[in-house]
């Protein structure tokens, strides 16, 4: 097998190696750079998209929060108003209840007083009637017997005692 000299210039070999470099350039450009650049661009686009969606979501969230805060403050005022109304209502109702109760109690007291009055009157009536009866009986007795001082005193005492007992 023959070998070349260490340095031997050959036109065709040089040309072939030049073309080799050109071909490898095309290979690298087409098979290495193009797909990688494509993927990089795609990733860039995806990132952009993610960013825009994230920004949009953030803006949405912010708007939501604002709306909520507004609504919350409105709700606070509403609650205050409701509370006020309720207290007012309760106050008025309690007043009404109290006055009603007072009236009722007054009524009861009045009825009781009336009843007591009636009772007393009845009692005095009955006492009067008894007095009348007793005096009638005393008169009967007095008429039946001769009256002496001693008897008289005894009679009166017993009468009075009778009254006390019956009055009890």
């Amino acid at each position, binding site marked *: *097998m*023959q*070998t*070349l*000299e*260490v*340095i*031997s*210039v*050959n*036109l*065709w*070999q*040089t*040309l*072939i*190696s*030049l*073309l*080799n*470099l*050109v*071909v*490898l*350039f095309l*290979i*690298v*450009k087409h*098979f*290495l*750079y193009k*797909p*990688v*650049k*494509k*993927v*990089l661009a*795609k*990733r860039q686009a*995806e990132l952009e998209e993610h960013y825009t969606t994230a920004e949009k979501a953030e803006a949405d969230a912010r708007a939501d929060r604002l709306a909520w805060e507004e609504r919350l403050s409105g709700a606070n005022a509403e609650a205050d108003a409701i509370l006020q109304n309720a207290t007012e209502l309760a106050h008025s109702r309690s007043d009404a209840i109290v006055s009603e109760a007072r009236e009722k109690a007054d009524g009861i007291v009045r009825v009781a007083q009336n009843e007591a009055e009636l009772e007393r009157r009845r009692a005095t009536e009955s006492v009067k009637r008894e007095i009348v009866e007793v005096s009638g009986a005393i008169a009967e007795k007095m008429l039946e017997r001769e009256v002496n001082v001693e008897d008289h005193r005894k009679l009166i005492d017993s009468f009075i005692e009778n009254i006390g007992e019956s009055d009890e």
Partner: protein
Amino acid sequence: MKRKSLGFILVDALYIAMMTLPIIAGIVLKILTKPASSGITVTGAQIYFTLPLPVQDLPVTESQINSLIVMITALGICLFLTHGLRTRNISRRQHLVEWAIEKVDAMTLDSMGEYFKGFPPFIMSILILSALSSLLSLFGLFPPTSDINIVAGWAILVFLLITYYKFKCGPLGYVKSFCDPPLLAPLNVISEVATPISMAFRHYGNVLSGSVIGVLIATGLQGLSRIVLGWLPGFFGEFPFLQIGLPAVLSIYFDVFSGCLQAYIFAMLTMMYVSGAFNADEYFARKKKKLKN
């Protein structure tokens, strides 16, 4: 992590085969055709056959075959790295390829500027071709970069690019670029012609010096092991045991470091020469004038 589908793994295996099989085939070819050598022999590439062509015959040599191997391997690497690209949850190889592309883009932007947007793939291909060609010597193959023709082809392509960008300012601008100080015009012409030659010889010389030193050390170690271990009987006395190990350590410097460094330097010089050849201010002034007319 999602399990990869069977089809994905099959395609991956195909690409890996595309990367490795050419190198294995090259090694087999080398073993089949390598003549038994003795002593210090520093030669060029082996000639497999010769094609008759006008002007000069084309000997199809190891460097041609190995360039082809490098090209197929590079294609396999490109396909393997860009297989299964995703926009999120990316794999390790995608990290690697994105990192590499980002680096090359930044390098090109740094030393060439905005105008040369289409150059990163070219720089990347120079880096891949040069580094892989030099690294072929790790497998015991003939590195195509230690053939002057191969490197000269690349340097001539760079020279064509330089000339193209000099012609962007018109033929008059091209002539004017040599007459910066008018007295030094001949020297400028010489330095212009010297550019591709120096680029080619720099790369070629570095790789060749590595392989020459490798051959020298291997031969020296063969002799040394014959002296030291020659008294052993039979096979043990003949076999150069000292050749195991030490050349590998040296090849880490001469093949890996030097090869990658030369690829980087060739790419850097390409960028510097091409961007230096382009006179941006004058070009844009001309363009504006043309638009006005």
